[in-house]
């Protein structure tokens, strides 16, 4: 109906209004309302009022606390981000703290599994059967401590094999 009121509406709408007394009545009422509305002018304040209004707004804005610019909020955010990044980098780049506690050692070892360990085969050969009595509970340190000087040198030479770069 608003379209009919404002711009006449489509031919179909107009045909309906022409044939429907209720719609025609509502349309007339809305037209009369629009005519009335046009009479409700707002009293124009004195000419000096607008300048006074502008000055008052300007004064009140001047009394407002300083406002940051549109992107001003980025500064504290950037500072906070920088602090977080610096802390993260310093934590990641720092070598792990040494610890005497075996419980804190990682579960993995750089040593290969026993079956793949060439070094153990060499040690076994040098030990002349001593390895048959090898017991993990006994420890490699005790075994090496029992070697003579010649055996120790031979062990070092045998273990000093060059491996391709990147291979453990």
């Amino acid at each position: 109906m608003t379209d009919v009121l404002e711009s006449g509406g489509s031919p179909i709408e107009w045909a309906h209004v022409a044939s429907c007394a209720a719609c025609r009545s509502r349309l007339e009422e809305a037209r009369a309302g629009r005519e009335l509305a046009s009479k409700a002018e707002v009293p124009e304040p004195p000419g000096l009022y607008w300048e006074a209004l502008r000055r008052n707004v300007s004064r009140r804005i001047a009394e407002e606390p300083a406002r940051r610019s549109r992107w001003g909020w980025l500064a504290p955010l950037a500072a906070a981000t920088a602090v977080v990044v610096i802390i993260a980098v310093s934590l990641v780049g720092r070598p792990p703290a040494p610890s005497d506690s075996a419980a804190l050692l990682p579960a993995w070892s750089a040593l290969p599994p026993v079956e793949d360990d060439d070094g153990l085969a060499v040690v076994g050969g040098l030990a002349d059967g001593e390895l048959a009595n090898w017991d993990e509970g006994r420890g490699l340190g005790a075994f090496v401590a029992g070697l003579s000087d010649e055996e120790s040198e031979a062990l070092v030479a045998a273990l000093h094999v060059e491996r391709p770069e990147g291979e453990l």
Partner: protein
Amino acid sequence: MDTTPSPVLAADGASAEASTARDAERQVIEACQRGEREAFDQLVVRYQRDIYRLCYRYLNNHEDANDVTQEVFLKAWRGIGRFRGKSAFSTWLYRIGVNACLNFRAARRPAAQDLTETLPDPGMGAAQRVEKAQRAAQVREAVSRLPEKQRATLILKIYHELTHQEVAQVLGSTVGTVKANLFHALGNLRKLVAAEEGVKP
């Protein structure tokens, strides 16, 4: 030789002028967003009449309209950093204005009626001027008694000549709802005035 510009060229010229005005306003708004108070002064000068009249139509007296108009511009200054230009600046400002008026009315009922003001019109006799002013006050009073959405729609559409789409943006509504509210508002306005006059609508 006929030097009258063709309608098409005239339309192009008007469009270009509007585009230039929009660009200029955008620059002023950006300056405001950088915190330049002098730039905001330009927006106040440009829109103070519109906002004052909007407030007057809601509040029906000069004193309240004056207070709320100032509040609207203060709110606009505080919030201009959040204005992203998705709607026209005037639409954004009207939205602040409508909300400020609604809040003011909610806090201070009943609205005062200002029947003493007269419209200066040198072409009229004193009796005619008084009669016209009284009629205007009567209609404004009837407008102020319309339901909220109908009143807002009527004020923005009839007195501020916003499009249906712009009214919908200001009120957070749809074009269909705006059209329906406008139609009902006009019909109800007619009934309210007729009831006050004691005549059958």
